[in-house]
């Protein structure tokens, strides 16, 4: 069984109709005497012999007769041509007459003799131009040879055709061989091949970067499109983009428009900052969502939010600037004993509740000696508000 599989021989020459049932038990039970199981498997049940017989090959042009082992089944050898004859394929190289040459194929750079030689070689070597170039008597480049061969073939094809339309679909006619293009292609190929590892790494980096940019861009566009259910133009002046997108809607609620504008205006702010804006609004006694969202009210509301954002950012800036020169300003700015309120905002108006009571130092300076009453370990971010701060 297994050996037959390897040899590619059929398991049995006859279809297994009635013999199916009786077969399996027969196979396993039958224990041939005198020969091993594997050999029996090769030989099989039929009368199989191997004979040393002569054969011919239709692919050959002569009448050479050779001999080989043939598997004979019940006295009948296999029929048909030599099994490898079908692989003898060749290219149809055009054969032009002398008249045709004079009429269509003359060329300033090529003699008839050379052209004939070229076509002979093409026929002989099945258009393997590398080989043809090697064997060509005069030194011509592969591109020159190809060019001559393909343009001759093309001209003959067009000349022999009944009308131009007949051959317009032929690949030779549709896409003629172009020398410069080929030269360029090969040059580029060799450049890629000879690239150093370093260059390869650089290229990969650049491509990865480009891919990342394209992907993040696509993600942003997709996100905005999802939110607004519309295609969105990308970036710069998000509020204006927002207004533009709103105009593309057929109908919308003013509260929806306000929400979108708020999102656009706060796009650079983190979640904590946005919460602080809302806290400030509450402290100012302003509804987070206007109760009477008219055009004027919404406009004022939006501007107010933007102004609060500005104020918060300015306060943060002030904080950091002070943190930089902290201990050295103590004497100039504050009397000792007062809480280190860095925001310079009167207590009645504690925006966002971020009272920098204790030191919030983002940056470390070398050799900074802190005189702060209680300086917690240098934290990377401003601490969250604690109950003790109030």
């Amino acid at each position: 069984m297994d050996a037959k599989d390897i040899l590619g021989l059929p398991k049995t020459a006859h279809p297994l109709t009635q013999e199916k049932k009786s077969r399996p038990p027969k196979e396993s039970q039958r224990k041939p005497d005198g020969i091993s199981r594997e050999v029996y498997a090769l030989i099989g049940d039929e009368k199989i012999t191997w004979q040393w017989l002569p054969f011919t090959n239709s692919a050959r042009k002569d009448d050479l007769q050779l001999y080989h082992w043939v598997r004979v089944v019940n006295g009948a050898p296999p029929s048909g041509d030599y099994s490898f004859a079908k692989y003898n394929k060749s290219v149809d190289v055009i054969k032009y007459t002398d008249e045709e040459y004079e009429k269509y194929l003359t060329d300033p750079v090529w003699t008839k003799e050379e052209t004939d030689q070229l076509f002979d070689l093409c026929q002989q070597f099945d258009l393997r131009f590398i080989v043809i170039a090697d064997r060509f008597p005069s030194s011509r480049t592969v591109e020159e040879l190809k060019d001559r061969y393909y343009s001759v073939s093309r001209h003959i094809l067009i000349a022999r055709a009944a009308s131009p339309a007949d051959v317009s679909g032929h690949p030779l006619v549709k896409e003629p061989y172009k020398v410069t293009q080929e030269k360029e292609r090969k040059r580029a190929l060799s450049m890629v091949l000879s690239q150093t590892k370093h260059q390869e790494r650089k290229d990969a980096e650049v491509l990865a970067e480009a891919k990342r940019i394209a992907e993040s861009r696509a993600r942003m566009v997709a996100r905005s499109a999802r939110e607004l259910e519309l295609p969105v133009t990308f970036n710069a002046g998000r509020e204006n983009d927002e207004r533009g997108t709103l105009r593309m809607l057929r109908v919308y609620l003013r509260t929806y428009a306000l929400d979108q504008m708020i999102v656009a205006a706060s796009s650079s702010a983190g979640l904590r900052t946005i919460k602080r804006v809302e806290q400030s609004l509450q402290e100012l006694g302003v509804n987070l969502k206007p109760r009477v969202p008219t055009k004027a009210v919404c406009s004022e509301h939006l501007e107010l939010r933007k102004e609060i954002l500005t104020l918060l950012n300015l306060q943060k800036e002030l904080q950091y600037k002070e943190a930089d020169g902290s201990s050295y300003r103590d004497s100039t700015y504050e009397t000792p004993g007062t809480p280190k309120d860095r925001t310079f905002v009167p207590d009645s108006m504690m925006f966002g509740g971020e009272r920098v009571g204790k030191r919030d130092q983002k940056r470390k300076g070398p050799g900074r000696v802190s005189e702060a009453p209680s300086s917690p370990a240098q934290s990377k971010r401003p601490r969250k508000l604690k109950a003790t701060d109030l």
Partner: protein
Amino acid sequence: MSARKVGETEPQPEEGGSAQLPQSIRASKSTEDSDKKSTDRKLKDVDICLPIVYGTIAFYLGRKASESQSHKWTVYVRGATNEDIGAVVKRVVFQLHPSFNNPMRVIESPPFELTECGWGEFEIAISLFFHNDVCEKQLDLYHHLKLYTEDESGPQSTKKPVVMESYNEIVFPDPSEAFFARVQNHPAVIVPRLPAGFNLPNPVLNDNMNENKRGDTKDHPLSQWFLNFSEADELLKLAAARQEVQAHIVNVRRKLSLMDGVPQLSKPPSGFEYA
């Protein structure tokens, strides 16, 4: 105000001959050519605004209450100034809780309201459909039906209902000329002023405009419970808040610039000094 431009610069044959225009190729239900064209031409950079109030008013039924029907409530959409919004809104669909029979209630004419009895609170989906020359898309609103007050002290009153109203404005950007012409003098609609010399076609009235039936809610039986929405209060509050914030900004900016003026004492590379 900035100049308003007509959106499309197509030729405007008043009678027939619409072969040049692409719209004529598409199938159209409109009968008159001029009518069709004015619904297609849009006024760019113009908004038409319809202020509305929508919500519910719920009465406790008291003695008449049963287990399944303890309250009688009305859900509605009205013009914010109680004018008739039927010129803009064609129909309103209220989607009720599935426990109601035929939970999808369609109201084909103003006043757009619906009264029911029940015991439960749930979210009502309100879909507004507009006239053809206004907008083909519907607008969906959501409102939570409130039957009980937060203040649970004492028995519920049958006289004083629980009212929940929301104010909002429906904006139609770049409206069609026909729509604009039709509502430019309508009390329910806020329409910007166009520059003088602007030629709008004569308004074409749709058959669905209820000229006879009263669509406004000025004398509505429930109008005494309608809430007041005045932008004045809110504007005042906002203006005051803005002033305050602006003052603080000025303050902080001043401090920042003062700091910039003072030489930095703590620049790392050059070491430090004690003050």
